[in-house]
Structures are given as C-alpha cells and as structure tokens.
C-alpha cells in the first residue's frame, strides 16, 4: 500500500529547482517543473547511479519536421544522471536513450502548501 510523505513546503521548492531526499529508506528526487511537481526514485536504470543528484537540463532533438536541425528543447524537463549522463524525462520517467525503458514516477499532491509524495 502506498504511503504518503510530506517532503517540502512549496516555498522551499521554487520553479526550476529540485531536491534529493531520503524518504522511507529510499532516495528520491522531487522536482518543480514550471509550477508542477514531480517525484522520481533516485536510481538510474543504467548502473544504479544516484540519478536525482544530477542536474536538471534540457536536451537536444532533431526531427524531420525541424529540417533535421539539432534543437535545444524541453529545458527544465530532463534529469541527467551524474554518473554517465544518461537522460530521463522528469515528467514520464522515460529514458531518452532507451525509449522502451522508464523509471517509476511517484504521485505528487499539494495539500495546504505541503508537497506530498506517495510511495508504493
């Protein structure tokens, strides 16, 4: 059964920032991406590195629609593992290099200005 944990007050997690916390004997990352909150386990599926201790960033994409021009996109939505720079989508947990794999995402709610993460 999922347990809910209060991880921060909204004032402590402004837009564009994230925190790494120890919650329920595990390390997690809590993110404020443009006013919305997300949480991920701090475990990279590559070599089990401390994913959320890495930097939040954007990434580079190139598509036929954009004339195959490398473009900087999704600033603030990508977490980069500090060990081998593997990229993950903060919103979905999807691994950018291995799109069929993802890490779990935790449900986040805000109650009375408290950010709560639900951990299974």
């Amino acid at each position, binding site marked *: 059964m999922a347990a809910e944990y209060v991880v921060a007050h909204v004032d402590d997690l402004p837009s564009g920032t994230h925190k790494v916390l120890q919650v329920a004997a595990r390390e997690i990352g809590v993110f404020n991406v443009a006013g919305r909150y997300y949480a991920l386990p701090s475990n990279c599926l590559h070599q089990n590195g401390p994913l959320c201790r890495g930097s939040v960033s954007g*990434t580079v994409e190139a598509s036929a629609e954009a004339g195959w021009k490398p*473009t900087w996109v999704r600033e603030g939505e990508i977490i980069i593992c500090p060990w081998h720079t593997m990229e993950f989508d903060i919103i979905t947990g999807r691994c950018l290099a291995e*799109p069929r794999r993802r890490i779990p995402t935790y449900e986040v709610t805000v109650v009375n200005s408290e950010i709560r993460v639900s951990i299974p």
Partner: protein
Amino acid sequence: MSEIRDSTLEGRAPKKLPKDVKVIDVDVHAHETPAALIPHCELPWRKSLEVVSKVPERYLDIPFFAPQMAVWSPPFPQSGSERRQIVTSASQMRQDLDQLGIDVGVIFPDNLLLLAALRDADYATAIARAYNRWLIDEWLGEDNGIKGAIVAPSQNPVAAAEEIRRYASHKHVAAIYLPSCCVEPLYGHRSYDPIYEAAQETDLPVMLHSVTAIFPVFPFNLNCFSTMFSAHIVSHGLSMVANLLSMMETGVPARYPKLRIGFSESGLAWVPWIMMRMDKEYKERRRELPFLTDLPSTYVRQMFFATQPIEEPENMKEMATIMSLFGGEHSVMFASDWPHHDFDHPNKVLQIPVSQETQRNILRENALRFLNMKERA
C-alpha cells in the same frame, strides 16, 4: 573420360544446397580494365585511360586507376597478390555461377573498388560513368540472373545521384555501390545526402564495399603494419566500422528511413561488437546524435550484411550465435566474392547450423528484400 579444364569450379557444386532454393549472391566481381572502359569514357578522360591502359596491371592494383599502394611487404608465389583470377564476360560469369550453384549474382567491379582513392573528382566521375555504361552494355543485357550495382562516385555526390536516377529503372540494376576504400570524408558526411536521397527515391539499396589499400586516410593509414595479413583485415573490416559510425553520427538511417543499407566483404563478427559499443556510448552521449530516436542497435537491425569473407571458427555454430546477436536471421545475405582470392564457396555458409528457414533467408530471401527484386520468372 574427360579432361578437367582450367576452371577450378568444375565438378565442385555445393554439396548440401537445398534443392528448392535459388541462391542470390550479393557480391561477385567483373574485371574492368582501363582499356575496356576507353570507348565508354568521355573526353578528356578517355585520353587518360589511353595512357593508363598501357600501364602494367597487377591484381587490383593499377597506378592512376586503382592505386592500392600496398607494395611494402614481400610477395610470395601464388599468394593473394600474385593470383589473378578474373571474370571478363557475362557469359563466363554465368558459367561460373552455375558451377557455384548460384542463380543470381550482383556484379561489383574489380579495380574500381579503389575508385574513392582517386583525388581528381572530374576524372573519378568520368571513370564511374564509363564503368556504369560498360556495365549496362556489356554485362546486364540479358535475362540470365546477372544483376549489377552501379557505382556512385563519392568525389561528386551530385553526379552520383544523377547516375542513380539515370539507371535505376534498368531491370537488371539491383543496387548502388558505395566505394568505401580510401573514401574521405566518410559516408555520414552531409555532402553525400544527394546519394541517399536518390537511393531512397529510386528504391535502390546502397552497398558499402571496401578493399585493401595503404592510403593516408583512416582506416587505411596502414604503414604501421608489415603484412597484407593485417592490412587486409583492417582495410575491409574497419572501413565498414568507420563508415557505419559516420552514418550514425549524422543520422543517415533516421533521416532516410526507407533507405536500405548493406555492408559487404567484412564478414559478420564485427557487427555485434560495434553494435554493442555504439549502444554503450549512446547512453552517455545521446545528445550528440539527436537524429536517432532509439538505440543505435535498433538501426543496425534494419541494415543488411553480406557473409563473405565468413569467419571460420572450428565450430560453425558460433556463427549462428553471432548472427543471432544482431537479428542476422533477417539481414544476412550470402556473398561469394567470386572470383577473388578470398571467395567463399556456398559450402562454407552451408556449414552454419541454422534452421531451414534461416538458411533460406541467408541464401535468398534477405537479398530479395534488400535488392527489392521480384521473383524471377
């Protein structure tokens, strides 16, 4: 009693060839001398070929035409460099392929394996055009299973694209040959986009094919080795590796999703190695290759690989394992490289213990898809 004549293939038909499979061989070689191309070559380069035609010819090594430059190691009698087994006509090729148990053969050149070494773009382009005319006129005139790969001169990709469009509708043109020996820049360079556009548009596959040379471009700067043993391994295998990496860098398989890309004359064992190395590196450096939307191995699994010169471990089951690592059941195509010194008789590939279906794929079905050939009537 009958005398065995000069064919070394006579009476040596493949032993275990399934009777109902008509074998496609994606790499056989026609011998184009400079003299043969003279009437097909435009001026002023015809004049150059007239000079070149008087230069003594060594095996895959003619100054000004096929500059192999691998003349630093000692030769031995009947070694690779002295042997000179050539096929000079379509009828001879047909006869040889019959004796090899092969139904369809795709012609690649002999000397023009070194075309990319030529530094004068206009000269190289004229020779490529002359070769294509010669190929069409002298080799592809009959419905006898002889197919051809037209050569794309790397020195002039726009002209190469014109050649592709000129000949694509010819019923016996089956592929586009990308000269990979000494090519610079490597085949991922954006300057080659016209070639890939034309190939995708005309639905012809591109086939990379290298050969041995010592030349000051990677991976042919082989002055560090003392034997043809080493030079031959590096010239073929690492050329495929280098060009595949280059094509990945600029996202060729992503940017041309319908383009069929084949790799020839490097065997198979390199494929899982480079595929796994690319996947490993990609995880760390994905942003350098933003054109790809998946692991490099995903694209490698869409590419095609010719068998020859097949690795020969004592237990050929190892080759079945190696193929399984990159989905080779659906992408490996038989190639003999006839009549070159290191040709593979079908007997060798038939020693790989795979299912009948996979054997059939390797001998025919995968090549049918690669070449987009309809069943022969």
